């Protein structure tokens, strides 16, 4: 096990990096399985953007905490409890509606976060964010188009999309969770206030859901723990798959 970084900005960068890596892996699981060739290409393109952002953030986190950890250390040599991604991104792909809805809910959050972070007091995080804003704008457009088509589509697609929304909604509360780390990075000017992000996210998501004739869930169940390394059951299986090759053949290269 690798010790958890103590520097708040390093931990914050690690959380964002883990979000990107984990969602990237989930999307890559669609490769050769998407409903159409164009979607296969779209989802893996989005995965590649997220992976690129994650790599830059891992490098920044390792600089901030002075650990000198490599990308492979982060991706392949940490155990489940060391990953600090939010629970939303690790949720299984489900049917296409679940993947689209996860993408809508998370890309909206990322677009708000990256936009604010492009003015971070940490110049390197600001630079990563300014590039990511352009990329996530495409991701959100893609998710929005699909949400409208599926939500306001056939009776079957509407039912499935509403079910996907109901299933994933509880995990969105965690995106705006405030803890000692976020309070420190907000105070340092490194990161935006989660409460401000929540207001922008609410308005943006509500607008799309209304247009897609979907009903915003009213559940108050709000599981958290991802930011502290406590994950849902499906995440261990995903990690086992993602890390298998590197752990079976340490240092493998090709």
């Amino acid at each position, binding site marked *: 096990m690798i010790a958890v970084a103590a520097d708040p900005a390093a931990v914050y960068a690690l959380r964002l990096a883990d979000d990107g890596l984990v969602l990237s892996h989930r999307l890559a699981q669609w490769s050769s399985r998407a409903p159409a060739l*164009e979607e296969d*290409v*779209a989802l893996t*393109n*989005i995965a*590649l*953007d*997220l*992976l*690129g*952002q994650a*790599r*830059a953030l891992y490098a920044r986190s390792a600089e901030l905490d002075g650990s000198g950890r490599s990308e492979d250390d982060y991706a392949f040599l940490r155990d489940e409890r060391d990953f600090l991604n939010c629970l939303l991104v690790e949720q299984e792909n489900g049917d296409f509606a679940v993947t689209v809805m996860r993408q809508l809910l998370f890309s909206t959050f990322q677009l708000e976060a990256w936009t604010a972070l492009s003015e971070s007091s940490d*110049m*390197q995080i*600001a*630079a*990563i964010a*300014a*590039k*990511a804003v*352009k*990329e996530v704008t*495409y991701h959100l*457009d*893609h998710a929005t188009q699909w949400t409208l088509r599926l939500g306001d589509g056939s009776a079957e697609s509407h039912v499935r999309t509403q079910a996907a929304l109901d299933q994933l909604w509880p995990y969105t509360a965690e995106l705006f969770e405030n803890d000692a780390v976020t309070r420190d990075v907000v105070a340092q000017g490194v990161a935006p206030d989660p409460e401000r992000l929540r207001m922008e996210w609410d308005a943006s998501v509500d607008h799309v859901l209304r247009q897609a004739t979907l009903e915003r869930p009213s559940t108050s169940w709000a599981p958290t723990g991802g930011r502290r390394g406590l994950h849902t059951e499906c995440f261990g299986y995903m990690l086992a798959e993602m890390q298998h090759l590197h752990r079976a053949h340490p240092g493998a290269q090709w």
Partner: protein
Amino acid sequence: MVTTALERVRRVAGEVVDPEIPVLTIDDLGILRDVRVDASGHVDVDITPTYSGCPALDMIRADVASSVRAAGYADVTVNVVLSPAWTTDWMSEVGRRKLREYGIAPPRPRESGMQLLQIAVACPACGSAHTSEVAHFASTQCQALRRCTACAEPFPHFKEH
């Protein structure tokens, strides 16, 4: 002497081609950001990625280093800089022409949002302005897939970024 070395290194580095679109040099793409040669002969080359996850970047980085070394400058560092973020507006006119001839519709100017809406993406095969987007994501991160309604040819579009 230092000025001459700088010009030479800049030309050599700028001639490295993009492995995914080999008609374009990194100078055409606008991803070669800066070249510096100090008094001791140490060379610094700054490049910037197009997209964060661009898989060509590591190869471009290695190609730049080996080209500069082959030109006689053994002490070279290739830096990846992220800011300011790359935009297709940095692509040269020569690069846009080469793309079109290669069969890829070049990116339109982004500088003015209004202008972008008014300029159609022309088919690189027949020149028709009657084209439509088939998929926003295509074979590489920087391209979209379009179709020409005049000649029915599908073609990639280097999308504005």
